[in-house]
């Protein structure tokens, strides 16, 4: 985003961009509920496998295990949750850029570059897990077109992954600005908006993890 907004009159005293991002997040709730609802509507209705939590033998005798790997996905879930922690620390670092840092710990906490990197890397790691999951599913015989489960699963998690990808790109862009001219309190709002988006994407995953992976 461009340099901090000039002073302009506002009715609420709040920055317009923050209002806009919350409205956007509200809209995204409807987007994801449509995807999640469809997944749930089609849960248990696929005529052929592979299935998420049950094994299946195809008519021509091939055997398929339940395809979801809870342990691996738990790890990726944990990674994404920790990325939210990193994000919150990144914002805090930007806000407190000009405060004096006396201890080593404070300096570490206060490094916006460090925490932006952490967030982006953890996000990318999550995406790596997703890529691994997608490719291994395809290998095991589940594609977008295999059955209702494949269609709804890949579309739902794919949309989520696309949102994470956009977030990572956004974070890297912020990092680029941090390296070029530094991010300080005047940029706090821009980083805050990126953070809100990021946390929301995390929160959506919390729902997906429960509803797709854990509930059978």
């Amino acid at each position, binding site marked *: 985003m461009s340099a901090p907004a000039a*002073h302009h009159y506002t009715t609420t*005293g709040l920055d317009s961009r923050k209002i806009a991002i919350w409205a956007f*997040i509200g809209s995204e709730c409807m987007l994801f509920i449509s995807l999640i609802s469809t997944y749930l509507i089609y849960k248990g209705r696929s005529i052929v496998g592979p299935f998420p939590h049950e094994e299946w033998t195809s008519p021509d005798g091939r055997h398929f295990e339940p395809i979801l790997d809870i342990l691996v996905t738990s790890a990726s879930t944990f990674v994404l949750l920790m990325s939210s*922690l990193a994000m919150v620390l990144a914002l805090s670092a930007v806000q407190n850029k000009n405060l004096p840092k006396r201890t080593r710990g404070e300096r570490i906490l206060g490094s916006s570059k460090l925490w932006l990197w952490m967030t982006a890397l953890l996000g990318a790691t999550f995406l790596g897990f997703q890529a691994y999951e997608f490719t291994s599913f395809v290998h095991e015989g589940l594609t977008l077109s295999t059955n209702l489960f494949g269609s709804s699963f890949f579309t739902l998690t794919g949309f989520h992954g696309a949102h994470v990808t956009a977030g990572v790109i956004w974070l890297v862009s912020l990092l680029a600005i941090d390296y070029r001219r530094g991010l300080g309190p005047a940029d*706090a709002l821009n980083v805050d908006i990126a953070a809100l988006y990021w946390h*929301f994407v995390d*929160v959506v995953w919390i729902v997906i993890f429960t509803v797709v992976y854990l509930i059978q």
Partner: protein
Amino acid sequence: MAHDPAHTEHAAADGHAGGEDQHHPGWSTYWKVAVILTVITIWEVWAYYIPSLVASRIFVPMLLILSGLKFVIVVMFYMHLKYDHKLFRALFTGPLLIAALTGIALLFLFGQLVARFGPG
């Protein structure tokens, strides 16, 4: 010549960290939230591997409550909704409510949720 008279009193919140907050949670709050998120996730996954729990009627409600808790603490603390202007809370909960009701209605309409009235 005329400069907006309200211009200077109502400056937008830039150059001031999260101008509209009443309170900034510190590092310890963030850390505590992260720990709670981790603990709940471990709990959920642990429960997943207990077949008798999975088969019981409490499993789904428990998971929904636990993930609901995670949802709420990320929104309240990481997304700062607890500390921010009420407007943002309204902008979020309205759509969230409509989304939730729509989702529930769809589940009923497609028979994935069934309400039983009376005995049996």
